[in-house]
């Protein structure tokens, strides 16, 4: 089986569990066999993780003994049947590269944090920036506002896209921003306009994050918010504005891309890196791995 192996990546986020199963050819990447995404929704994470993993295994028609490596990423403690663990930025970078081979940057937009990553052609992380312990502008924040406005998450993007350009939501605090929103509602702004304002302000932070991480060229959007077309439109808008603005000479062009599998980037990256690590360890003769020893479905 030298060179080709079947591996799995499991990404335990704070709002969803993502699983990817891949067949990898070391040195050339690999292809996806099956995937699964399950929102946690206040359920027991361990159960959700097992369920998601089981679902993906069934779809791929493989069982635990078939895996050369099961890699966890995200919250390591949840998966007790992994062979090894990679950290989020490593896997998102690798996943981003898989989704868009031209990508040299990744922007992971998850429920609580956003991370901007600059990487090389192998997916090696060259630099990164992360948002701090303040939840302003996170996915969770957007979710709260959407709920408050009575808009289902799936419609957020479309509503924002249809809206006219508006003022940004200025408040730095995710909690106090609600007050801004209240005032907007009472001034008669539509949900779409308000969402657009929020999107613009989040996008502004994200673009700054990307710039400060030094990302340039093609940037893959990863994480759950990559499904939000309204946010993506705003990011594109801001990047374009920046590149047309007075500082254009000093700025490298950035092109952001989202993929239907964006939310799976971490899981995909983990699966691919698992294969790579497996091979590396084989070569070094260090392999004493028993994937799934602890798994008792």
């Amino acid at each position, binding site marked *: 089986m030298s060179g080709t192996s079947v591996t799995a990546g499991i990404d335990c986020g*704070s709002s969803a569990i993502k699983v990817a199963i891949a067949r990898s050819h070391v040195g050339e990447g690999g292809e996806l066999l099956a995937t699964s995404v399950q929102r946690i929704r*206040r359920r*027991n*994470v*361990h159960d959700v993780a097992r369920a998601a993993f089981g679902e993906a295994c069934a779809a791929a028609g493989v069982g635990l003994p078939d895996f050369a490596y099961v890699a966890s990423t995200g919250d390591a*403690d*949840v998966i007790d049947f992994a062979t090894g663990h990679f950290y989020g930025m490593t896997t998102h970078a690798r996943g981003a590269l898989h989704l868009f081979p031209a990508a040299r940057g990744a922007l992971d937009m998850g*429920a*609580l944090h956003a991370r901007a990553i600059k990487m090389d052609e192998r997916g090696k992380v060259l630099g990164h920036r992360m948002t701090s*312990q*303040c*939840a302003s502008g*996170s996915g*969770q*924040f957007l979710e*709260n506002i959407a*709920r*408050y*406005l*009575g*808009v*289902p998450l799936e*419609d957020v993007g*479309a*509503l924002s896209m249809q809206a006219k350009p508006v003022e940004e939501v200025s408040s*730095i*605090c*995710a*909690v*106090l921003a609600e*007050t801004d929103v*209240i*005032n907007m*509602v*009472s001034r008669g702004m539509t*949900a779409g306009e308000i969402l657009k304002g929020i999107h613009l302000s989040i996008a502004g932070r994200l673009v700054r994050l990307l710039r400060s991480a030094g990302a340039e060229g093609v940037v893959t959007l990863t994480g759950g918010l990559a499904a939000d077309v309204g946010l993506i439109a705003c990011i594109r808008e801001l990047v374009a504005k920046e590149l047309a603005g007075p500082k254009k000479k000093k700025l490298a062009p950035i092109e952001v891309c989202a993929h239907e599998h964006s939310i799976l980037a971490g899981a995909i990256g983990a699966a691919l890196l698992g294969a790579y690590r497996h091979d590396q360890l084989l070569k070094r003769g260090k392999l004493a791995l028993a994937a799934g020893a602890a798994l008792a479905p």
Partner: protein
Amino acid sequence: MKCVVGIDLGSTTTKAVLLDEQGGILGRGITNSRSNYEVASAVAWTEAVTSARFDLLERAMPSTSGSWAKPMKDAFRLELFIDELAELRATILRNLERSLTVHGDRKALATTVGEVLDRVRRKAEPLFVGGAPRRSEFFRDIAGALYVAEAEEISRAGGAPFEQLAALYDRAILEVETRAQRRDVGGLLRRALDRVLPADRAENATARAAAAQAIATAAAQTIEEIAVVGTGYGRQTLPFARESVRSEILCHGRGAHRVFPGTRTVLDIGGQDTKAIQVDDHGVVTSFQMNDRCAAGCGRYLGYIADELNLGLHELGPLALQATKSVKVCSTCTVFAGAELRERLALGQKREDILAGLHRAIMLRAMSLLARSGGVQNEFTFTGGVCNNGMAVKVLRELVNENYDPTTTLNIHPDSIYMGALGAALFGLDDARAGRLAPMPPFLRAVASEVSA
């Protein structure tokens, strides 16, 4: 009858208090601030006037009628609820018709919504007239909780998807709340009367006559506001005359001192801010401290946590009180605290123990503000929405015992939430006595005319 009005525009709730010329409390009203502030103060004020009318009604009633005064009040609230529910129904149906984002069969959805609301109405009745405990005083909360429960059940039974039903409610409630409502107090009173003393029962005739008489007497009383003072978080945005606006710090201090004249230290924890106030023996503020720009550690923190656990605000404290130990919670950010809660739950820690830790985290921040403002002096009065939370009070008591004189009296009044408005009204009374009559601001005047019996 001449009276003064104090309005406290909080970040979460808006409160109004009506005082008579002698400083006696005539009425009070409260509503959610989750809407336009003008509307919120109009609604709170309307409620205060309504409750003042009840006060007058009670005064006008013959002493023998005591047995139906309370049922009458409850019935009145129920009728109000029913009116508001009708409003909600109309709004949902209107939105449904216009909505761009609803996919599928609108007619079927409308029928389902109707079904849900019918059930809500039936379930609401015992909450008002049956003595069952209410989660909250607010229409939004009561209706919301019932709606969610019914919608869940119906969608589980194969009706419309829950998310869709919930979205319709969320959308509509916002609109209902941001509209100033006309209220036909006379009509409501008559319906309440019919409910309490049905007309078709002969034995009720005398009582009904007495009640009608009392209603007429109460209705004949004019209520004339000679001074209106505004305060609170939203006071800057209100079209009040500058002279009629007082800092909420002063108002909270004054209100608390009025209710508990021994008060020297006041802690007020509202939705988005926490204030530690020291007052002298006249209720005049001598020093104060407020939290900074971050909303961490305020009432909203508890709101998020309650949402996270799918609980009502009322249930949070009692649940935390069952804790056997207090888990150390590190996040002060409201949003991250939610995440930490989830993380700790996943680690198998007990819900009540984590909650105990969260309460402690909030109260520790409050203790710092208190220390900063000059400590805790006897007597110590705790006001604001969070003082309704038993666990918050318990932790506060413990912390006061650990750090200050354990014999310190800790005052909490069931109407603590009104302290700011009461203080504002007292300043209004000062103004009135000094001959500075501040007439009703026009936007209040506009709704005022509609609230007569």
